């Protein structure tokens, strides 16, 4: 049995007894079969023998339970790692960084506290998945759309505060967040924005309140446990058009991005547009060495068969004439600069029947689709999701730089997938494949991904979100003014979490007691 660092077995036994006193015997998990369910099945660290093993998992049912668990962790200085549904695949799943951490499993906190059709928002707990909210909206017959990633079993709160991606008009998920309740590491409960006004009716309607806007501190956070969050919803539009544009040549990504940028920034294309090379992406392959192509179209040898061009997925929402006009304008813009574009589109009108929609269309309409689940080969590799200027020329430089780098390792990089959920920037995925069992393979891949981080840093590309085992390497790119931002984050960490119990090492931010020896 793994135990938390610095504790004796008898101390840990005492702590477990206290956890059981807080959440009940049934909700403290310590036996191997249970612990196994809290391990990332696609971690590159498994084959390396470096995957952190939890000492226990604890699942409180309410805010008081969260406070109680944090009190025990403070008393015994036990590191805790927060999961909501534990589906953060590719970025670490349910895994902690520190061996022997206790997993704080929030799945039992699964209440939908409010859905407001008139004001188009919901207030949810962390255990509520995209699917849970969607099905409840259908059950109540409300004319509201959700938004979110594929597949829809991830937590609304966790995906949002990890600054994840949706594919509809609210695809920049963190922008749709409005108001939080947070249990701080020390156990105090804080509500942000208008939630701090005791009798306010606008907690989910106005984000900012008065004074510094602190919600950002609790995104990608190791400062507290978000126990409630407001999420804006989208009023069901009268019409919706799902569209794809195909360009035939590899080099066409340059004009493609330059066409997309002004349309995206000006909201002519209002959804979280995405693009990928036809040479592969995570849906076609995964991160495995033999299971097709890993994300970013990095074939292990030469170019794979198939058309070499690119496609992008777009969505338009609103009145029928508006969605038609904006789609026609988009086609004109593409056709005027790229030869032999192909356009595919389907228009739907309310009331919508999900059974008659293409899987791709459902994604852009926030309708849970589970078609893609078995195609998602999470593999055992490392992703690197870089923030790159939204410019054809700049992206081409990125692509060629990484391809040249990959060639040194006998691999290629053909680019993509690209996310345009944040309309002024590109999120460009690269990465390396990994193996579930081959230690040597993963050692070589790790060497490559570490060097890729150095290359990215030299070129000014930072990651928007980092896989668990590359968080410190990812944060190292944020080095302006002798890493002033990291030091600022460390000061906040030490002030709000003085015992350093919450998610030590998350995004390269370590508490004072563990900073010694960290790069």
């Amino acid at each position, binding site marked *: 049995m793994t135990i938390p660092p610095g504790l004796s077995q008898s101390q840990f036994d005492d702590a477990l007894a206290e956890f059981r006193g807080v959440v009940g015997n049934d909700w403290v998990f310590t036996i191997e*079969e249970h612990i*196994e*369910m809290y391990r990332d*099945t696609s971690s590159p660290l498994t084959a390396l023998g470096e995957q952190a093993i939890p000492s226990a998992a604890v*699942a409180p049912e309410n805010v008081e339970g969260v406070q109680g668990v944090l009190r025990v962790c403070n008393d015994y200085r036990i590191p805790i790692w927060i999961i909501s*549904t534990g589906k953060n*695949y590719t970025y670490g799943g349910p895994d902690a960084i520190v061996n022997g951490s206790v997993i704080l*499993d929030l799945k039992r906190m699964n209440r939908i506290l409010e859905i407001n059709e008139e004001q188009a928002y919901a207030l949810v707990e962390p255990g509520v998945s995209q699917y849970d909210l969607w099905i409840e909206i259908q059950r109540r017959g409300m004319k509201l759309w959700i938004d979110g990633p594929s597949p829809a079993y991830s937590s609304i709160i966790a995906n949002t505060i990890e600054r994840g991606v949706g594919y509809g008009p609210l695809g920049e998920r963190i922008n749709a967040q409005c108001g939080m309740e947070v249990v701080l590491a020390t156990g105090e409960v804080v509500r942000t924005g208008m939630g701090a006004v005791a009798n306010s009716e606008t907690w989910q309607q106005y984000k900012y309140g008065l004074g510094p806007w602190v919600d950002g501190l609790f995104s990608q956070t190791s400062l507290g446990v978000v126990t409630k969050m407001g999420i804006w919803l989208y009023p069901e539009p009268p019409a919706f058009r799902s569209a794809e544009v195909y360009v035939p040549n590899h080099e066409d990504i340059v004009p493609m991005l330059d066409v997309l940028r002004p349309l995206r920034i000006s909201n002519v294309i209002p959804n979280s547009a995405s693009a990928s090379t036809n040479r592969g992406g995570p849906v076609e392959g995964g991160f495995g060495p033999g299971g097709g192509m890993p994300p970013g179209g990095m074939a292990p040898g030469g170019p794979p068969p198939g058309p070499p061009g690119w496609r992008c997925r777009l969505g338009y929402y609103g009145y029928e004439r508006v969605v038609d006009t904006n789609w026609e304008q988009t086609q004109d813009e593409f056709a005027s600069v790229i030869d032999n574009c192909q356009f595919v589109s389907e228009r739907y009108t309310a009331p919508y029947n999900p059974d008659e929609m293409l899987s791709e269309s459902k994604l852009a309409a926030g309708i849970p689709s589970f078609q893609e*689940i*078995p195609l998602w080969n999470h593999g055992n590799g490392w992703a690197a999701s870089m923030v790159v200027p939204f410019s054809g020329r700049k992206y081409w430089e990125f692509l060629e730089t990484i391809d040249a780098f990959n060639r040194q390792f006998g691999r290629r990089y053909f680019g993509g997938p690209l996310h345009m959920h944040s309309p002024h920037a590109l999120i460009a995925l690269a990465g390396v494949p990994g193996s579930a069992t081959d230690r040597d393979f993963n050692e070589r891949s790790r060497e490559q991904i570490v060097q890729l981080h150095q290359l990215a840093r030299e070129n000014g590309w930072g990651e928007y979100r980092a896989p668990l085992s590359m968080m410190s390497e990812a944060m190292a790119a944020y080095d302006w003014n002798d890493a002033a931002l990291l030091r600022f984050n460390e000061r906040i960490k030490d002030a709000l979490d003085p015992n350093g119990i919450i998610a030590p090492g998350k995004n390269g931010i370590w508490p004072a007691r563990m900073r010694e020896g960290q790069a």
Partner: protein
Amino acid sequence: MRILSWLSGFAAVVFVVSAALGQDDLVAQGREVYMGRCEYCHGPGPQKGGTMTLQLRYQGAVPGVLAERTNLTPEYIRAVVRTATPGMTPIRITEVSEQDLEAVIAYLTRYNEP
């Protein structure tokens, strides 16, 4: 071995749940849990990832829709739900409780030959 230890560990749960509910009630409860937690991927119709995968894997030798199968054993269902299998990650006790899993097992084995 892991499956066996699961089974012995939870035999008592099965007994208590079955005795308290009656088999028909257990099947009905299992159907409800299944519809909420499994059907979106394993149900009939298009765009169901689990059903598509099983159709490909078994090429019609058994139904692709789980609820139509008659050869699923409790041990197998438990193992697939609780441990990692290709295309499906473990479903934890906080997602589907032991009691709900026993009910799902009762539902999915309701047509099995005795």
